[in-house]
């Protein structure tokens, strides 16, 4: 088995781009990824592309060939849909393909266009990541589902809205220097606490925004990089995926995310590392409580302990384990089908030293990306390592 390396990363600005089509967003991200990689387009042997709600947002199905065209590649192209984990799964498949020797170069990433829809239609669109019969028809919204998990967490372990507000404040502060981020402004704990409710106990600043954007990665084999003199210092050392019962009500425990436990266990085993080896993490904070659940599934904290991590400064930029130095989904934005690729792009830049927040993790060698779908019925975890 060969090693998979990240040769190049490309992102669009995350935010509101009402005048830009999905194909234009992905084309931009791919263009930047090719520039960053210094790999010619004609060497790409596979496109793995993530997208969640393109059929609703742009009346566009069958997106993979369209995005291959937009990126200027001609190769087998497949769209992956796993709700908010769509791009994480797409990247995982690219890594597996390269490792298996089926391709030397793969283009992976994703795109979501969301702000062109009215807010209530986006709310409805996001809700379809839940069980339509037993959850959506019963009043479950996307924020509402995470609010159910937050109440269950508070009941099981304790914790307060103020603990969650510290997660929001941390991630907003991290986004300030990130040129790709949707909200480059600080939010204080007080402002977060006073914001209007969305689905209590979650309020406006507990929730990620509605975002347009795209991500693209050029993944190459170690041999290809060596033979073609491609600078690709970051390896995808581990990949793992987990699945859980679709409906929250069917989970054994409502304040835990075992699909992410499984994905993390597999990714750590694949990389031959453990949680103690990790220097920096990008986790799926679609809501503040989701970051807490992620920290626990990744093994950084015992169940019930992750809630205090931001407040106590463990996961802040100058803490022992900086989490979401990109700003996270919370402040950088969450173009659903692009997010998993974006996390790996940010982590790669952090590890290479060319991220505006790299100074906080100057000696970092191991990073983890955690991407979740729905209420974590799907989860993908990747371990990145500085290989040279």
């Amino acid at each position, binding site marked *: 088995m060969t090693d998979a390396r990240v040769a190049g990363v490309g992102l669009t600005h995350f935010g509101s781009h009402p005048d830009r089509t999905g194909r234009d967003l992905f084309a931009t991200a791919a263009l930047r990824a090719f520039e960053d990689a210094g790999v010619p387009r004609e060497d790409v042997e596979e496109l793995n592309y993530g997208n969640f709600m393109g059929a609703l947002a742009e009346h566009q199905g069958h997106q993979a060939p369209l995005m291959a065209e937009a990126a200027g590649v001609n190769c087998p192209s497949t769209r992956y849909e796993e709700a908010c984990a769509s791009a994480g799964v797409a990247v995982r498949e690219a890594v597996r393909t390269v490792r298996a020797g089926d391709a030397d170069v793969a283009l992976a990433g994703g795109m979501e266009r969301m702000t062109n829809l009215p*807010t*209530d*239609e986006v*709310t*409805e669109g996001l*809700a379809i990541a839940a069980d339509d*019969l*037993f*959850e959506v*028809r*019963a*009043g*479950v*919204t996307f*924020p*509402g589902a995470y*609010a*159910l*998990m*937050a*109440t*269950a967490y508070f*009941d099981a372990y304790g914790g307060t809205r103020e603990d969650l507000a510290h997660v929001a404040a941390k991630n907003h502060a991290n986004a300030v220097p990130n040129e790709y981020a949707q909200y480059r402004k600080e939010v204080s704990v007080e402002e977060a606490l006073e914001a*209007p*409710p*969305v*689905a*209590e*106990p*979650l309020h406006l600043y507990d929730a990620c925004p509605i975002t347009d954007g795209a991500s693209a990665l050029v993944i190459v084999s170690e041999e290809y990089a060596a033979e073609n003199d491609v600078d690709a210092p970051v390896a995808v050392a581990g990949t793992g995926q987990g699945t859980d*019962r679709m*409906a*929250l*009500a*069917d989970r054994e425990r*409502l304040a835990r995310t075992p699909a992410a436990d499984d994905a993390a266990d597999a990714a750590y085993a694949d990389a031959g590392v453990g949680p103690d080896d990790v220097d920096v993490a990008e986790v799926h904070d679609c809501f503040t409580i989701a970051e807490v659940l992620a920290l626990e599934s990744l093994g950084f904290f015992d169940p019930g302990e992750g809630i205090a991590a931001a407040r106590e400064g463990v996961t802040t930029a100058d803490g022992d384990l900086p989490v979401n130095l990109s700003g996270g989904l919370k402040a950088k934005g969450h173009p659903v089908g692009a997010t998993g690729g974006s996390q790996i792009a940010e982590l790669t830049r952090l590890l290479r030293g060319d991220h505006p927040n790299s100074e906080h993790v100057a000696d970092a060698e191991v990073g983890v990306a955690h991407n979740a779908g729905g209420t974590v019925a799907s989860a993908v975890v990747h371990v990145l390592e500085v290989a040279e």
Partner: protein
Amino acid sequence: MSAPASNGGYDEWLDALADGEGYALVCPDGHGSLPPRRVCPECGAAALSEGPLAETGTVETYSVVHVAGPRFADDTPYVNAIVDFGPIRLTGVLRGVEPATEAVAVGDRVAVGVEERATDGEPLVVFRPATEE
């Protein structure tokens, strides 16, 4: 949008719940699930029988929803809850309480039935506080 298609299994279950005869599917090992099912999602057993729900259930978690999609636009604010009824948990809207976090608690006892969604009259799984005996 065109008229919604029927959802065999689910529609029958909802009708039964509305008639006060709600049930869960139960496998020989006692795992509960909701229809339609061919096999138990926990163990794969194909021998599923209908088992009764508990008379009242226990609120395991809840939220107060202020922002919803078009199908619940006139229902907000509402309390969404997951309630344990023995073989299974159900998700639904808790009525008969103020839609406020302090008006509900984990552990509250509730009954279940089917009522209409305020927005469009479609059937909705509804919990109400269990009456004192």
